[in-house]
């Protein structure tokens, strides 16, 4: 990144080729789809390039990179009111937990049933509050340590632990029917 700061195009290419896939996967997980993920990834690297002269190596480059990605993804979902576009089930606590349309098909892992389940999980992830969603996606997609996630979210490791725990509990509750069928 210090070479990029000096205008080294090939250094910027190297950073792009090393990190673009990860950033795009993070964006896809955060906004709930691949369609906008590539554009967001480009926006992240454009921001990196434009801010290159102010870059200071105070922390890992990936921490800085994911901080930018996190903020841009937040702006994206807030700008387009992302949550309102997800076909949300009732938030009523008494509403029945989601049940797979064909539990036997899921056990046999038929293709369409698998897609249904993955879609359900993506929907649940999209419903998570923002910090929980970020912590969960960074942990699962990029396998970042809690400490680094905390640096990105400007919070402690304990807070990251709490965020991921709460996110997992929400997802588990939303998949209760599937989990019970599998016992």
């Amino acid at each position: 990144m210090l070479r990029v700061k000096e205008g080294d195009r090939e250094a910027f290419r190297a950073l792009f080729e090393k990190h673009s896939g990860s950033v795009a996967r993070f964006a896809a997980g955060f906004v709930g789809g691949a369609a906008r993920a590539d554009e967001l990834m480009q926006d992240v690297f454009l921001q990196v390039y434009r801010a290159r002269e102010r870059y200071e190596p105070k922390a890992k480059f990936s921490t800085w990179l994911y901080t930018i990605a996190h903020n841009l993804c937040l702006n994206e979902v807030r700008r387009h009111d992302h949550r309102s576009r997800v076909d949300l089930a009732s938030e009523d606590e008494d509403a029945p937990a989601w049940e797979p349309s064909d539990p036997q098909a899921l056990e046999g892992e038929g293709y369409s049933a698998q897609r249904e389940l993955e879609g359900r999980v993506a929907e649940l992830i999209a419903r998570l509050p923002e910090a929980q969603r970020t912590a969960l996606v960074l942990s699962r997609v990029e396998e970042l340590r809690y400490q680094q996630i905390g640096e990105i979210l400007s919070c402690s490791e304990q807070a990251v632990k709490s965020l991921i725990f709460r996110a997992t509990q929400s997802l588990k509750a939303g998949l209760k029917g599937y989990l019970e069928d599998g016992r």
Partner: protein
Amino acid sequence: MSCETMIGSIVALLDGELAGAEREALDRHLAGCAACRRELADVRRTRDLVDRSLAALGAGVGRTSFEQLWARARDGETDGRARAPAGPRRPGRVARRRILWAGAGGLALAASLALMLVGVPREPGIEPGPAPATKASEVVARAPAAPSGPKPAAPVVVAAKPALATERVAPGEVRDDDADLDDDVEPVELAADEAAVVANEIDPPRELLERPDLFLNYPIVRKLDELQHLESVLADSPDPAADAGGAG
């Protein structure tokens, strides 16, 4: 160690973030608690599903070439549409708001001067007073008091609170962010709302995240704990039918 305490560490265990005494305590608890072992199994299955879903979402990405990106980067610098790379930085959101209101204050001053020159009559007994009280989060440009001397009072501008401080985004509200990228890309923090936190519609406030003893008392966790504890108690209880059969 109670189940309530242990459950909060199960995910961290799977993430490899537990070590030392904390890890040993959880391992000992799991060895003797069927409910927590079921919780561990459920969390593991949930995470597997999350991993598969995220992998499916990310399968179609990464089609942008470096040349495409570089072309956008150069376009942004050569035509100056996105930003001015040389010269003073474009002010951030808060600074732009202050500039806007400072400009409004200038207009108010000019208007007052114009009124003074024209000599608009005042109703007897009504003195110009301060502007109405405003909310702390609002920015106001107060019109200067009627000048009694040659120099008019300067307008008072109350600066807006920084955008990062407790500015609530209402559900469904779309923020009017600038379309182009800002140097100071900072998200707006949401104000804490207990009911929404309890329902897990928004993230808990930071202070709560740092206090697991409080955090774990929120109903979303307590209900799950109570359910699992009840299941554990029932599983461990002797069969009432067997006892009744032996009664004399």
